């Protein structure tokens, strides 16, 4: 194949982040850093039981403490107007904040203390005394499988062909895989500053992946006119899915601001990040595969049981990959959730598929050993040339190229089929692969462009940037479309009053918002051409695709003599700027094609014979995400996926004390995310072939597929190294010795 694909060295030279300077100088203001006059501080009081009722709440001492301005609980809350309405959505029923004395999980916010300094609010919160009528809490998934229910929004279990067809096959694998709960733990704790500018006007600086979504939910909750709620989230210090909704602490801050009539800042403590803003739910899966001796899959049966809270149904697409990844005639899947005394989970990077792929891709690896077949060959034997679920052609799929490029890069031929056959000193060496996939989505978005006679362009969108480098990518799209150098383009985001954008989640930002950038750039060019035509008639035929900015001029590349100074095109009515807006929305392409991004992850793992310590020595990811717009940031995002996947595979596990439902390891000292010493040099590769149908850039999503499949690749490498199959993550040393 021609060298179109991108490797590390190609990407290191690409454009650096446009917001790099403000991030390395500390000038970027994240939520809790925005300065406001008369700022007050809120600190939460949380329940210390997992189930039951508050029978007494003594706030007197806290109220009298120095600097304390208010203590708010269910006894004196100003109230959330939406709670009084009927017709509550029964599926998405957020925890009702301070609405009753009921306790549903350990760590539930039950009061807030507001004071003039943080120290005084913290001290005040320590003075609130709570008496409970304690009930018996249930938090163990394994012990409560009998409570499993089909989610209300699911009509029936999925079936294609015949159920349990694996049983008829010559070669079978039937196993259970468990994944513990995992915390998102973005480095910036969830934070909010709330204030009421008037009795009916609310402004928030908030950590959110969607300023407009948060504004809409707040408007509904407090029964305000949507244009009277403004949400600002200029810089977001990571989220990974934890900031895709409004959480109780955000409602608390708004209630507190109402009570004290001043801006209230509320920042969660690191430990609260483990149970107040969602988590990837603990999930038990049963997978059964059946294949003929040439590796052709005849049937897959896949069941999933995941945790949810007592007050809300949380679901994710754990089984989606099983239904579309391989060309299999018979598939049956069953998805259940188990309501427990825990807070509601949340989508976490690669939601659903990251969990499902662990079971599916490990089971395939197990099958490959039974068949004595190379794991890549097994996947190729079942390669789906069209979507076997929707029975539609793929919009684009370069997964075969991914297998080939990655195998060459990691040196797959060094892998021995016999587990435990390769030894380096005290370390056993193994190689593993797994495949990842995630739907490639595009939504609707709008964009505003302000172009000035000096050739500078300002673009504005409500979209958030939680880290992937959205402003950088959008700047590149505009620059490539127009020919305006990147230094002259600025991209402003993270403000609900800016033009419409979706939440930053589900890997759809470039496809959705990038399309709006293209649309507004095209509109700008057409408008300027229209104006140019009044001076020079040959501009009348110019179309957006052939118009370029070149220095101080506008040029029609079809008519090289056509150049005109764009500064001369500003009319008398707006001599200083030209404002253009555009909307962009998907067409009917999703009725014709099935849109997915794909990835393959290769892992070289070394396992210490005596201690069971696992070291990842090399990692290669090869990715089919369509055209790569911003190579440097795309590469970093992919590396981040590997790092997250290594944490998922080897160290991350939220542990609850099932006696009281309390999180045992809420801190970074006890919940182990990967640190520098855990991470090898990694090689990221992109096929970089355009998707013809999803959007004008040819891009598909990236943020999820970089983690989906990493954990099973690690588990498969550990098996190849040791012959020990670990089916319950994380793969800690005790499981290997």
């Amino acid at each position, binding site marked *: 194949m021609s060298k179109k694909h991108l490797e590390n060295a190609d990407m290191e030279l690409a454009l650096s982040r446009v917001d790099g300077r403000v991030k390395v100088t500390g000038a970027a203001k*994240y939520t809790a850093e925005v300065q406001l006059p008369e700022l007050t501080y809120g600190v939460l009081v949380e329940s210390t039981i997992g189930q039951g009722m508050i029978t007494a709440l003594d706030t007197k001492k806290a109220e009298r403490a120095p600097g304390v301005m208010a203590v708010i609980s269910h006894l004196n809350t100003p109230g959330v107007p939406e709670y009084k309405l009927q017709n509550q959505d029964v599926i998405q029923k957020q925890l009702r904040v301070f609405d009753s004395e009921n306790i549903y999980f350990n760590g539930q916010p039950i009061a807030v203390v507001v004071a003039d300094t943080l120290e005084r609010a913290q001290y005040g919160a320590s003075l609130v005394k709570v008496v409970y009528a304690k009930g018996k809490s249930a938090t163990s998934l394994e012990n409560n499988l009998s409570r499993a229910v089909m989610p209300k929004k699911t009509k029936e279990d999925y079936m294609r062909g015949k159920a349990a067809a694996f049983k008829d096959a010559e070669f079978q694998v039937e196993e259970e895989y468990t994944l513990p709960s995992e915390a998102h733990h*973005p480095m910036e704790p969830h934070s909010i500053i709330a204030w009421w500018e008037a009795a009916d006007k609310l402004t928030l600086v908030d950590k959110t992946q969607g300023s407009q979504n948060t504004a809409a939910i707040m408007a509904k909750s407090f029964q305000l006119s949507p244009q009277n709620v403004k949400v600002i989230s200029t810089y977001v210090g990571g989220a990974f899915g934890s900031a895709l909704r409004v959480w109780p602490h955000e409602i608390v801050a708004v209630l507190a601001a109402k009570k004290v009539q001043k801006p209230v800042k509320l920042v969660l403590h690191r430990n609260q990040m483990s149970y107040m803003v969602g988590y990837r739910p603990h999930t038990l899966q049963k997978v059964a595969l059946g294949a003929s001796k040439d590796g052709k899959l005849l049937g897959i049966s896949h069941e999933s049981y995941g945790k949810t809270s007592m007050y809300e149904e949380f679901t994710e697409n754990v089984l989606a990959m099983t239904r579309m990844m391989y060309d299999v005639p018979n598939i049956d899947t069953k998805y259940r959730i188990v309501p427990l005394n825990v807070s509601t989970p949340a989508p976490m990077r690669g939601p659903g598929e990251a969990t499902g792929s662990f079971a599916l891709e490990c089971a395939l690896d197990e099958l490959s050993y039974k068949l004595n077949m190379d794991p890549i060959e097994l996947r190729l034997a079942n390669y789906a040339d069209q979507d076997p679920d929707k029975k539609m052609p793929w919009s684009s799929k370069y997964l075969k190229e991914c297998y080939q490029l990655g195998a060459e890069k990691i040196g797959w031929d060094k892998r021995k089929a016999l587990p435990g056959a390769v030894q380096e000193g005290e370390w056993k060496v193994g190689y593993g692969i797994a495949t990842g996939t995630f739907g490639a989505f595009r939504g609707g978005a709008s964009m505003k462009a302000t172009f000035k006679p000096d050739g500078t362009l300002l673009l504005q969108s409500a979209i958030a940037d939680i880290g992937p480098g959205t402003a950088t990518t959008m700047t590149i799209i505009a620059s490539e479309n127009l020919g305006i150098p990147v230094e002259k383009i600025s991209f402003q985001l993270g403000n609900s009053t800016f033009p419409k954008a979706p939440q930053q989640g589900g890997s759809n930002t470039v496809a959705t918002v990038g399309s709006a950038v293209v649309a507004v750039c095209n509109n700008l060019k057409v408008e300027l051409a229209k104006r140019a035509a009044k001076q020079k008639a040959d501009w009348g035929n110019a179309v957006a695709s052939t118009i370029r900015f070149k220095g101080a001029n506008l040029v029609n590349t079809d008519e090289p003599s056509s150049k005109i100074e764009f500064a001369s095109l500003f009319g008398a009515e707006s001599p200083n700027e030209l404002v253009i807006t555009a909307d962009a929305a998907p067409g009917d392409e999703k009725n014709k094609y099935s849109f997915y991004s794909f990835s393959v992850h290769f892992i070289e793992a070394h396992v210490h014979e005596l201690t069971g310590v696992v070291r990842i020595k090399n990692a290669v990811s090869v990715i089919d995400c369509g055209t790569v717009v911003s190579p440097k940031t795309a590469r*970093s995002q992919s590396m981040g996926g590997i790092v997250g996947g290594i944490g998922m595979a080897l160290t991350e596990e939220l542990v609850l004390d099932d006696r009281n439902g309390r999180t045992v390891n809420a801190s*970074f000292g006890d919940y182990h995310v990967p640190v520098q010493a855990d991470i090898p040099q990694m090689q990221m590769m992109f096929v970089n072939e355009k998707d013809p149908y999803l959007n004008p850039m040819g891009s598909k999503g990236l943020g999820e597929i970089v983690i989906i499949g990493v954990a099973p690749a690690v588990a498969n490498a550990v098996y190849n190294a040791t012959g020990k199959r670990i089916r319950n993550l994380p793969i800690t040393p005790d499981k290997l010795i």
Partner: protein
Amino acid sequence: MDNKSQKENPSGSSRRDFLKKSSAITAIALTPAIAVKASDLKLDEKLSEAMEQMPLNIEINGEMHHLKVEPRLTLLDLLRERLKLTGTKKGCDQGQCGACTVHVDGVRTNSCLSLAIMNDGAKITTIEGLAKGNELHPMQEAFIKHDGFQCGYCTSGQIMSAIACIHEGHADSETNIREFMSGNICRCGAYANIVNAIQEVKAGGKV
């Protein structure tokens, strides 16, 4: 209050109560009626509050600050909440993530684990003190070039740690860099890029 401190202080009265009783309100022998009114207006609180403030002389990024602070105020909250130097980040507030790393007399320190008053007379350098005008510190330049961050929230701490890592002599090998940068968590996973940035700055010899 835990059991131990209650035993040592059977009356349950705190330092604050003591200050109130012994403070100016009692000392200047006000008539009882006025004393009651003073109490209603929380004047006793205000007096004891003033007496609880400790003097702090501290140099931050070359600028002397003469302050009065509560003893329980951390260096991190002094920087972020009092002085509005928000470049230093709060990631965990318990010394486990490194986002709050600053240099105290040249030594990298988790500012969340250091009370402000413990730093009387110290020279503090924060991320805001690295650049000389528009000219970035070589480590800041290298972080941009090698994309040593994504969301940017751990970045200030990473950069302060990275500079100290070189000064300490711990940047002589990739393995050492990884080991001595392991106190700074990056959840976005920019670790490999951070190593590349440090190696380049070390090789450049300017730090």
